[in-house]
């Protein structure tokens, strides 16, 4: 049907899947650790969660710079409304993959726990200890995380619909080993 389509660039594909894996790890970990009573395990899981999340934030920077300087492949033929939804989802995903870890980082600082990346690299606190602000940021982090994962679900459903029902190359051109 389609001519052999243009693929995403290597760095775009790498960043996409790396961040996807990290978000899909951070989310259930966040839900799980939150329910635990205080224990060494809880302290460890919180740290792993923060390190994974900070990695998302770290990768977001080159990813967005790459995206702004490299056009993605041209959209495949599809109804305009579908294209609008897809594009809107992508923009919101970018926004949330930035805001979710940012709110986590700020929450941590407000609660009086500095983030120390992998237990060795202290990340500066952008705000000071403030109990009420910490609780507010916790709620924001929760709501933003759920919004993010909902959009990820929508995004995934869209990709699968293109792959399975439309049988076009939408998914393939983002896969690491496609042609």
């Amino acid at each position, binding site marked *: 049907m389609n001519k052999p389509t243009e693929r995403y660039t290597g760095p775009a594909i790498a960043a996409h899947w790396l961040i996807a894996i990290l978000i899909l790890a951070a989310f259930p970990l966040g839900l799980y650790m939150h329910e635990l009573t205080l224990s060494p395990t809880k302290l460890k899981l919180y740290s792993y969660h923060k390190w994974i999340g900070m990695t998302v934030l770290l990768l977001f920077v080159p990813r967005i710079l790459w995206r702004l300087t490299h056009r993605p492949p041209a959209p495949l033929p599809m109804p305009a409304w579908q294209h609008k939804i897809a594009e809107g989802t992508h923009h919101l995903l970018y926004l949330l993959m930035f805001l979710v870890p940012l709110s986590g980082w700020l929450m941590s600082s407000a609660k*009086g*726990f500095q983030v120390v990346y992998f237990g060795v690299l202290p990340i500066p606190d952008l705000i000071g200890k403030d109990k009420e602000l910490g609780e507010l940021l916790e709620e924001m982090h929760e709501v933003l995380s759920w919004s993010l994962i909902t959009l990820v679900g929508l995004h995934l459903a869209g990709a699968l619909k293109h792959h399975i029902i439309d049988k076009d190359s939408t998914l393939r051109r983002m896969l690491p080993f496609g042609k």
Partner: protein
Amino acid sequence: MKINHIALSAAALLLAGAAHAVEFKQVDAAKSSLAFTSKQMGVPVPGSFKKFTAQLAFDPAKPTAASTTLEIDLASIDAGSKDANDEVVGKQWFNVKAFPTAKFVSTGVKALGGNRFEAVGKMTIKGQTRDVTAPFTFKQDAANGVFDGAFVLKRMDFNIGEGPWSDVSAVANEIEIKFHVVAAPVAVAKK
């Protein structure tokens, strides 16, 4: 009371100037503090004890004759968060029901030169007594004596954090203790 105090301090100052017959004895609890930093997963978490009493006798002219006794109300701990506060008073940590206070009794003070000194003594926490060495500095601030010191205490020496909490990769063994003691002078009869 207050007038008395000021008069006493003034008198002490005069005496201090004249014959060094002064000892810093009256610990000002409101100006003194006892803080610590624990490390959780490499993250330094500040904490403090809100309530403690200290007896002190420090004569700058005879520092090696100084002595101090410090008693800490362990339930007054602020370990950085509500969760932590609830946890550390429990059995595995301080077990404050059975051991409500920690105590430090000095056995000697060494002069290290300048305004630097070192207190050695016995620290008792949770039924365990260990030797502790705490370097500190002394300076005079108006009439008051100000003592600032820090030392590292190994929590496992006192079984602080038992069971799963003995995992020092989550909460480090080394706890940094910082004390800041402000004491008013009291005139003493010249010996």
